[in-house]
């Protein structure tokens, strides 16, 4: 399924969103979540009366940001202390390149 051509109220649509969200789902779970999404999208339907307005994305005085100032980051040893797998001072991940 490509791009925006999906309906989250169907198990197939849920499976697509779950892939975007990096969530593994069983078929039964996708079925149940499709029913939930159907009810939930009905519950948020009141939003559809509003016009989309990009000015709503402008920073609000509510969330005033401080200046971006560089500070010291966590030492590597501390950053790695909670890693499920680490080696040679780094986080271990599955291979991203295969040998050919």
């Amino acid at each position: 399924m490509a791009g925006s051509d999906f309906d989250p109220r169907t198990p197939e649509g849920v499976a697509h969103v779950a892939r975007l969200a990096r969530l593994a789902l069983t078929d039964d779970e996708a079925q149940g979540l499709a029913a939930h999404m159907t009810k939930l999208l009905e519950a948020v339907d009141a939003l559809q009366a509003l016009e989309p307005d990009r000015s709503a994305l402008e920073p609000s005085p509510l969330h005033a940001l401080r200046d971006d100032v560089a500070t010291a980051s966590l030492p590597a040893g501390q950053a790695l202390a909670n890693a499920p797998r680490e080696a040679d001072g780094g986080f271990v991940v599955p291979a991203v390149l295969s040998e050919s």
Partner: protein
Amino acid sequence: MSAGWASAADLAALVRRGARSAEAVLADALERIAREDPALHAFLRTCPERAEAAARRVDAQVAAGEDPGPLAGVPIAIKDNLCTAGVETTCASKLLAGFVPPYDAEVVRRVEAAGALVVGKTNLDEFSMGSSTEHSAWGPTKNPWDPTRAPGGSSGGSAAAVAGGLVPLALGSDTGGSIRQPAALCGCVGLKPTYGAVSRRGLVAFGSSLDQVGPFARSVRDLALVMDALWGLDPADMTSAQPAWPAEAFSAAAGGGSLEGATLGVVREYLELTLDPEVRAAVEAALERAQAQGARVREVSLAQTALAIPAYQVLANAEASTNLARYDGVHYGARAEGADSESLAARTRAAGFGPEVRRRILLGTFALSSGHYDAYYLKAQRARRVIRADFLAALAGVDALVGPTSPVAAFPLGEKVADPLAMYALDVFTVSTNLAGLPALSLPCGFTAAGLPVGLQLTGAPWSDPTLVGLAAAWERALGLDRKPRSP
């Protein structure tokens, strides 16, 4: 005097003048938690070694003639989504089991610097997603007023620990009502400060533009004491602000607040919503009491009330789907192996997140997805602007908006957990203040016939937090409720 039922102000006064040691206060609190908490499950874990070290520091300061601070020797419980260096922090999620933060949340640092003793970490709905504390991976917390009922949520453990007399103070977080609703259902006082007034550094993020840390206490005076330690600029939180409040603004407000001459706004649209008749009656009686004290009550309108829960659902969960993307099985927390990074993350997250968190991540990811962003995320942001403007207009002619915190009192465990939409509807009076970034406080105002507490919510203009505390202190005095669920 037991540390559990004593006020924070009285305990700190005893410790500061050397009449009682912090170590003795702590021993009493830990003994009480060990005895009472198995029936409540307010705590996920205690941290006696950390608390004992803090108590020894306080006692040494007193012995040296130094002032250990306004919270000297006061036991405090911390919601388990606030980082504590060296003490496991799980957000009540299997995914974070075993996670030991390398640093303290700024609010934890501040209360310890004021002399408080961090005794343990409290239960919550997983990643703060819920209104009953039943979505905890470690099982629900019970309401101290009736253990067959929920304490509310998501900060239900903190509310139950305070209301049940285990500790005088606790910290929680509030993204859509997670401090105020459990405070209402457990019969204690809870404040969500103005967005930016209290640091979010070390608060595990749910909806970053909505999250605020705040306190629970059994009296407005104690709430003020801990707020005076919490507020103020923290450069490590990029949306932190320095409010133009004098030092000890909250304690001063709690000591001097008055209802005489205050103008209180009652929201017309809220009166039209479905509300438990006993909750309505308790709130109306509290308003009559305020009028007898010289307050004026007038009706105001929040015409966009129907947009609040839809906008909140979309925005909070969109932000959650982004914030929770960090749990990928690589950097910290649980890991389920996979052949590639994508399957590793997908399997880790499926195994680690509970069903409510997964539902919310799905909605949030959908609302941000290509082709649906304008119809959901953008419109919800538009709704947020409209809601804030609505509130600012309604607040222009009043000192505070007043009404119920929750449409119902504490409900039976298991009653709503299977129906997510019924659970979301409980947040009808609380989510809009997070969307608008406003301060709001829940104060116990009466009881149902079954003896369950009812909470009154006071909502103010941005940065009017001390004014709300002053009004609440005066109202608390006028109501004169006995708020202990059982004999100490």
